[in-house]
């Protein structure tokens, strides 16, 4: 079992519904977010390329946040989901410094918070809230170890990229381009 997400940048319109759905699903305090949308524009008018993509924790197989955590609060869960055990977190912020994706924030209650792939939903066979809400259906969640899963097929047939591959973290968010 190896959970991953594929995001089709050809369909994403950057509406940020994934952000709001995450906030209401996970009770993320206003002013904070576990996922966000990035726009890049290249070229000069009128020869332009615009890319929109939803970003979050990459649930890396070689996660620097896990190795840098002094208490073991940052850890791997089922299917490789990277999560923080809030009770064990002392809020030191070492993980924030080590993350090449800037995917973590300090929750007002003092612990470090981040995307969990909505573990509580995934356990029940549901998609993460961001995937479930996306109006363009541009996000896919599933098991990369299963060659017949939709995500495995997409990643094996479509062109894709990952973010900051040079960091060597083996990220599990694939951007279809």
């Amino acid at each position, binding site marked *: 079992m190896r959970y991953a997400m594929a995001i089709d940048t050809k369909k994403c319109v950057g509406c940020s519904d994934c952000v*709001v759905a995450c906030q209401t*699903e996970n009770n993320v305090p*206003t002013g904070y977010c576990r996922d966000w949308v990035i726009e890049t524009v290249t070229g000069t008018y009128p020869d332009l390329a615009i890319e929109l993509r939803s970003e979050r924790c990459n649930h890396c197989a070689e996660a620097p946040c896990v190795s840098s955590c002094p208490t073991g609060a940052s850890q791997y869960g089922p299917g490789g989901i990277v999560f923080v055990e809030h009770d064990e977190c002392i809020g030191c912020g070492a993980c924030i410094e080590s993350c090449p994706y800037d995917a973590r924030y300090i929750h007002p209650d003092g612990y470090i918070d981040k995307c969990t792939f909505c573990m509580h939903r995934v356990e029940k066979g549901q998609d993460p809230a961001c995937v479930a809400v996306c109006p363009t259906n541009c996000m896919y969640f599933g098991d990369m170890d299963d060659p017949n899963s939709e995500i495995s097929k997409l990643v094996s047939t479509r062109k894709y990229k990952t973010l900051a591959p040079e960091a060597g973290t083996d990220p599990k968010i694939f951007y279809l381009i």
Partner: protein
Amino acid sequence: MGTSRRQFIKVSALSTGGLALAASSYGLGSSLSDLFDPENDYTGLNLKRVPTYCEVCFWKCAAWTHVDKKGDIVKIIGNDEDPHCNGRLCPRGTGGVGMYSDPDRLKTPMIRVKGKDGNDTFKEASWEEALDLIALKMSTIAKEHGPESIALLKHGSSGSHFEHLFKAFGSDTIGEPAYAQCRGPRETAFALTFGSWIGSPEPTDIRDTKCLVLIGSHIGENMHNSQVQEVAEAIDKDVTIITVDPRASTIAGKSKYWLPIKPATDIALLLAWLNVIINEELYNKEHVEANTVGFEELKAHVQQYTPEWAYTITTLEPALIRTTAREMADAAPAVIVHPGRHVTWYGDDTQRGRAVAILNGLLGSWGKRGGFYNKEKIKVPKFPHPKYPHPKWGWHSLAEDYPFAQMGLTQEIIRASIPEEDTKHKVKAWFVSGTNLPNTIPNRPLLTKAIDSLDFMVVVDTMPMEITGYADVLLPECTYLERYDTIRSATNRQPSIALRAPAAAPKYNSKPSWWMAKEIGMRLGLGDYFKYDDFSDVLDWQLKKMGTSLAEMKKIGVKKFPRKSGPLYTPDNQPINLPTNSGKIQLYSAELEELGFDPIPTYTAHDEPTEGFYRLIYGRAPMHTFSRTSNNPMLADLMPENNVWINPKVAKIWGLKNGQYIWLKNQDDVITDFPIQVRVTERIRWDSVYMVHGFGHHEKELTVAYGKGASDTQMITQTKVDPLMGGTGMRGNFVTFLTEQPNTVES
């Protein structure tokens, strides 16, 4: 009150903080007890769910409001069965929770009084007091000037309750900005061509189209939910998208062809496309023969509009115009030249809409798979009430100069409210529901002049929007999540209905509009029109007539009905039968000719920016609607303010930097109340600037949105009025940049 100058009041002026917090249970009943939803109880919070349809925009997606054990609304999830959303709400729908939880909401009725300092101020009032005053004022004004002199300006679901009240009272002096400030021209254009309005949601068969043509329509930035979903589905199926826009919109970035047109020249492009399709004989001759009238006239008319001619006007290469025309013809009839939605741009908007409709007519996309499907809706039975009295005059009389106006023209109602204006009838009072006119209506000075002249004004809203500061009586409405409303029945592929039921008791001392309308009606002696205790009685009666019930609808939220009007797509061997005068597609309009208008559209040059000025283009962001969402804490978090898009070449000339705050000044020397951030971007042409609509609030009670960004509406002081239907074209305004803080008036 009276005729003295109507001072703008900051809404909480006399608030003592000791608000009447008696939570009303109107419309709540016992609906929550049996709706525990284990399927959606991911967090173990014992969430209960109640059906609703969204009111953040006009798409009206059906959804489930989730309520926790304490009775608080925690999240809203789309209803899987709903054709408007297919289980997936947009960010505004998901963030609708913020409309409910916004601490800045209007909390109790208020009445305008003179304060000790002689200035106008608001006094908190009981519902009895506020409603009594409204009824008294309405009867007094009606006695002197007739009920017709009281106008209703409205938007959205609440408006329908007040519309019933007004018609019962004897006034159909009713208007909404959704017509003359938004989609009116396209409705008239399509009615003249195909015999019927486009309506909402648009019957565009995007999921199966092979070619989608968008003229300034920025799908994806406008989050018209199912439409955006279908575009994504079509992208999966390799649709060809042709986007015509001076700005590299989100959808332009996903298009095979982006045509960066010079603004205000769209009709020239449309005529050139018609020229290519006709002269290269790319149309289906049998279809044109069988289903259209006026082809020969059209052919003769477009000869002058070659792609080379259009190049000099639109700045688009002739080869590109030809290629895109051929793409459309190749895809026909599975092609959609989209009618757009907000189309009041340049004053010849109905004629532009006609050119779009003619192009669709020629390509044969009407009633075809991948084109426009044959839409259908189910009629909701009318709850019995006595016949409405016949008003002596109404919106028709105020729209007389515009022969094709099919709804009230807001700006004409505004004009008729100004004593010095030369109008046949005079409007003396306004009842405003769910529309923030100062951030909706062009020419703000004229609007405030009209408001100043009124004898009386009622405003109903959930939030302290700018318009509320002008009210004599201000009524706090509960949000859509806390009330029943009329049954949603809209045109779709398959008829369906959706229920809106309250998921929580109205917060503070707010009330639903159906209750306000009924209470005012009772006071005006119109009890026969309101023979129910609770609006749920009306709904249950209607639903039972439709073969369901309130109890069943509370469990399912959405119900679908079989089609009765015939096939979704007209079979190819069948002539299309249209409700036009000729029964056919009217490429040439005899109706227009008769009244002295162009029977086939022509190109007219529009004003251009003078030295140092840039055309103001405005649009939407996917997380905001109108000016209504900018204070929503969840949505403001995503986009707290708008910015002004400026081409790098222009920025260089002016020395403007990304992120710098500037003020905009328009051609009439109007300066934005607040500064706006510069976004230097290649995504906009050098002759135009772009900003998202709905920001720059000057009402301080909007604690999140106050002073954030600038208002495009404030910059729109000039309008070009459509002579056919009275739409107010708003894209003939030009702005320049001020880098130093100007002396702005404290608002």
